């Protein structure tokens, strides 16, 4: 299962459509809160998280998900400048970051 947490409607839709057309099952969420309450990611799942989210910050969400017992693979997505990314991402994690604008190859290498 692939999860997408992204607040921009069209980016979220485009990513979901792309995975669907490859017959990969996926679920998309507009913010971290709804993801945490509705999704139950497992160890062989992948979660794409936009760092720039309303409410719960992307970096906090990543920290929460990484702390789960059977934590899924996490990939951060960001359109922010590099210094903001390095400041926001918890330093210890090895979360890969893909930067917008993206191509499908950028996401497909992780699934």
């Amino acid at each position: 299962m692939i999860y997408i947490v992204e607040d921009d409607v069209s980016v979220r839709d485009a990513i979901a459509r792309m995975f669907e057309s490859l017959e990969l099952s996926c679920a998309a969420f507009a913010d971290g809160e709804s993801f945490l309450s509705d999704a139950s990611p497992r160890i062989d799942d992948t979660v794409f998280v936009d760092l720039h989210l309303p409410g719960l910050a992307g970096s906090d969400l990543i920290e929460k998900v990484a702390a789960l017992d059977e934590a899924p693979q996490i990939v951060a997505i960001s359109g922010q400048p590099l210094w903001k990314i390095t400041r926001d991402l918890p330093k210890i994690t090895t979360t890969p970051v893909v930067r917008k604008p993206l191509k499908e190859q950028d996401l497909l290498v992780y699934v």
Partner: protein
Amino acid sequence: MVSSSCLHSVLDTAVNGIIVIDDNGTILIYNRACENMFGYKSAEVVGKNVNTLMPSATAKQHDQFIRNYLKSGDPKVVGIGREVVGRHKDGTEIPIELSVGEAQTESGHQFIGVLKDLRATKEYEERLRVLQSNLVTMTRVNALDEMGAAIAHEVNQPLTALMLYLQTAARRARAADQPDDPMISLMDKAVVEAERAGQIIQRMRNFVERQAPQCIGTGLATLIDDCLELVRVGHEADDVEFISTFVDYNYQLELDSVQIQQILVNLIRNAGEAVKDQPVKQVVVSVERDDDNVFVKVMDTGPGLDEEAVSHLFKAFTGTKRRGLGIGLAISRSIAQNHGGDLLVEPYEEGKGATFTLRLPVNSKATS
């Protein structure tokens, strides 16, 4: 009858230089202020021609000037006053504001010169000019940065969606029972163009990101004074009071002074605008410190900023008066963050003005 010693003590108390010459240009009186101005002691120049105190070009002509005036009565300086150049004992030139009066005495025609040393004023004007032109240059660079960053960010989202939609559509077209080859070729071309747009955005972003702050040790109190001075220049007409309470002139901080000046000038200028129509027009800059941070606060007696106003405050391109040296709060904040600090506005309090706090880490290192 005034005694001569009394006269001399009056002359020596005068802040301005005073020189009296006879109609040959010979110095009769030369007060203490002149000694400081020119570096010659009174004893060294009294009895000499006044052109000793002039650069050679003027010195050569000065006797002739006096003769011309005595003959024609047509004044060039007498009774008018003008800016002239003097020469210090060490050879350096001194800008001077000179006014000359004349008197008929028993011992003949005499001229009395009152001299104001303009060196400090000139240096000060020059320093302001340099500060201002640095700020103008940096503001241009930063306006470009701001634009670049905003475009990169805003265009990124639709471009990402566009690219993924196109790639997905192209894949579907390929997988169809009867693939429409011309259609597929068009979609592939569209993907290539979207990719090209993406690369442009990336290049723009790389360019913006390369602007790391240039940090050097800077006296914070002087930096604040400079900023206040820069803003004061535009507020001479409307009696706004700009005050700094930070007077620790030994306190040094590692920072990019031009960038931090830009932030402060913007904050102080905004505050100055905000108090313009208030009964009390005051802008106070103060500094607080703890172990890790320096907090520079700009406080005003304006109407303040309520929650609604604060929510739009730091967004790019929301400013209203973009002219001259202005940079907006959005870029001010991102400069502060590039320094590892931040720019915050204190919560609204009824009846109080706005307070902006610029936080800078001690040992401020650029995060890049």
